[in-house]
């Protein structure tokens, strides 16, 4: 596939699709019918199955977020009862964390791209990949059953003894949902690790890999080593809830704080499950739209591993006021600060990559700019909560809420949307409408900041999170936040609409509309079922834009 298959004309844009044709035969049209989708073992189709289910959960979680924000419009707690409110924010958290953010990028873009980027025909275990989607769906079904049955009111963190002894909501059903979906995540991670180790194309050495792959490798490590711990913890919680005797039960001498240790052993690294793939996406976007290899490639690559590993050692910073000892707190605080360093390395390297690049402003790049900005705020405010003295004050307030939304929504979701736009032509063979996309990127950025920036101020003022009613003086900032959330909702609905539209009606994209580098762009759009018509052989690093013609195919 030679790069000049996409004709070029004007100087300002790179997206050209005039004259491009869809390949006659590709993974989307080779087989038809429901069974061909529900029983598929093709990683690309499974990625799409994930995309649909994850999108559904995203909007469901978003619906609950809107309920929460609407309630907080007034201080009095007058829209719904506190029980309903508690269920709304819990379902928002459970759905967004376990059914959207954790699988978001890995299970969709990762599933689609990892085999393409390493030049393989599929993931190492295609059937296990399908199984992982079914586990996700079963877990999701439990979550929805819990929701229909009246919801869960424990907060997404399921802290004992409230969850095990006190709550009379559908904790068990929700916990089973989380437990099952955890195994979906584990199987995805297992598949990625084996694929990246064993299925790379000839010549694709570790240091020629796209940074997306490095990020997903690091993510998979966390999925494998962290997820089982939360799975067993949730199972022990269920055990305790059913039998009324359990190992976290303070009435028989158990320690509720032990639950928090075990829970956060996974759930803190889980934040990196969410954001590392996003960083991988951003590295691809920055390289692709600056037409430049990433500055300090090996530093960016190893910083992913460093984040994954150090990320495992910091969970106790969620327990600074939970009764953990000051000595432990010191250890967790200092390691938390160390995680800041590899994150900073990434941001500086991305910035340096722009230097002497050839930068264009297509939508994915706008999302990349947005990601860097929002991740910067999220990461820097991480420094506040890692400082134990300050965390004592802001812990469990809206400051923390704003901080992690900047990382998990500002970071992950921006990267997810950016990546979706970037690889949409590869996935569907068609282009998204650029104008609408740019508009929605702008709306998302503005709406996001309006929603979450006031929450930093609210948090420092002392407004605790998970509050149904609040003192009057916090109202102005809450109204701003709710206004922002409405704008944000519009920003998320727009892509949903135009992506759906472009699925059938978008312009034919051609194999490489952005003239980006990487094995995924060397095959047709959409790719054939087994990805490459001829097995690729690699002779240079992925982002070698400076010698365009050097690649041997």
């Amino acid at each position, binding site marked *: 596939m030679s790069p000049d298959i996409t004709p070029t004309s004007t100087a300002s844009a790179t997206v050209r699709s005039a004259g491009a044709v869809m390949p006659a035969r590709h993974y989307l049209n080779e087989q038809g019918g429901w069974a061909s989708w529900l029983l598929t073992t093709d990683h690309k189709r499974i990625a799409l199955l994930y995309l649909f289910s994850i999108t559904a959960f995203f909007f469901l979680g978003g619906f609950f977020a809107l309920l929460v924000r609407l309630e907080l419009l007034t201080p009095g707690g007058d829209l719904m009862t506190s029980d309903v409110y508690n269920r709304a924010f819990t379902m928002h958290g459970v759905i967004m964390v376990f059914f959207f953010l954790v699988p978001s990028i890995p299970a969709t873009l990762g599933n689609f791209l990892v085999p393409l980027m390493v030049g393989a025909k599929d993931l190492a275990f295609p059937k296990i990949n399908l199984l992982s989607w079914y586990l996700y769906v079963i877990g999701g079904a439990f979550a929805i059953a819990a929701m229909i049955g009246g919801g869960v009111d424990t907060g997404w963190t399921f802290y004992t003894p409230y969850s095990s002894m006190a709550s009379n909501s559908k904790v068990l059903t929700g916990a089973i949902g989380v437990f099952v979906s955890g195994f979906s995540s584990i199987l995805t991670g297992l598949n990625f690790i084996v694929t990246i180790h064993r299925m790379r194309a000839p010549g694709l050495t570790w240091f020629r890999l796209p940074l997306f792959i490095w990020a997903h490798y690091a993510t998979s490590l966390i999925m494998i*080593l962290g997820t089982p711990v939360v799975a067993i913890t949730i199972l022990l919680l269920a055990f305790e809830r059913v039998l009324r005797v359990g190992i976290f039960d303070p009435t028989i001498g158990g320690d509720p704080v*032990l639950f928090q240790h075990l829970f956060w052993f996974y759930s803190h690294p889980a934040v990196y499950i969410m954001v590392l793939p996003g960083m991988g996406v951003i590295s691809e976007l920055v390289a692709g739209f600056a037409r430049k290899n990433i500055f300090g490639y090996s530093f960016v690559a190893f910083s992913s591993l460093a984040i994954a590993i150090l990320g495992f050692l910091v969970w106790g910073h969620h327990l600074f006021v939970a009764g953990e000892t000051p000595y432990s707190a010191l250890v967790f605080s200092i390691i938390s600060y160390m995680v800041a360093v590899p994150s900073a390395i990434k941001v500086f390297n991305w910035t340096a990559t722009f230097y002497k690049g050839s930068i264009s402003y297509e939508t994915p790049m706008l999302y990349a700019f947005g990601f860097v900005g929002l991740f910067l705020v999220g990461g820097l405010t991480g420094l506040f909560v890692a400082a134990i003295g300050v965390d004592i004050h802001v812990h469990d307030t809206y400051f923390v809420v704003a901080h992690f939304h900047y990382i998990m929504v500002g970071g992950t979701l921006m990267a997810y949307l950016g990546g979706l736009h970037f690889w949409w032509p590869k996935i569907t063979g068609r282009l998204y409408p650029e104008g609408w996309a740019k508009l929605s990127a702008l709306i998302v950025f503005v709406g996001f900041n309006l929603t979450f920036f006031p929450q930093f101020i609210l948090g420092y003022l002392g407004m605790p999170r998970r509050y149904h009613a609040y003192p009057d003086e916090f109202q102005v900032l809450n109204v701003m936040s709710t206004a922002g959330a409405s704008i944000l909702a519009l920003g998320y609905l727009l892509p949903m609409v135009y992506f759906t539209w472009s699925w059938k009606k978008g312009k034919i994209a051609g194999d490489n509309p952005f003239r980006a580098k990487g094995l995924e762009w060397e095959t047709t759009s959409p790719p054939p079922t087994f990805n490459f018509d001829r097995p690729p052989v690699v002779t240079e690093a992925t982002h070698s834009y400076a010698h365009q013609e050097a690649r041997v195919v």
Partner: protein
Amino acid sequence: MDATLRQEEHEHEHVVPKSLYLTIFGLLMVLTAATVGLAFVDLGVMNIAVALAVAVVKASLVVLFFMHVKYSSRLVQLVVLASIVWLLILFGITLSDYITRGWLVAPPIVR
């Protein structure tokens, strides 16, 4: 790790002689008997240490010989090592909280 290595690994599959398996089995049985026997001797705090040490030796024998890790690729050995290290991280850092709970910051609660 690429095609060359893969092929070699496959072609030179290490077949462990049957007698080695039987020897390992014998050792495991002896160690099981030893750990039960030692449990009846009062060694103070060393009881748990001895019991765990024997268990670690037994597990290592199974991993190295029955599971062929001694003859496996570096990567497999790394996976084994990594999971043990992570387990120790889970134990060690969690216990760092529990162990230091005796050392409360002065003055202790309600003195």
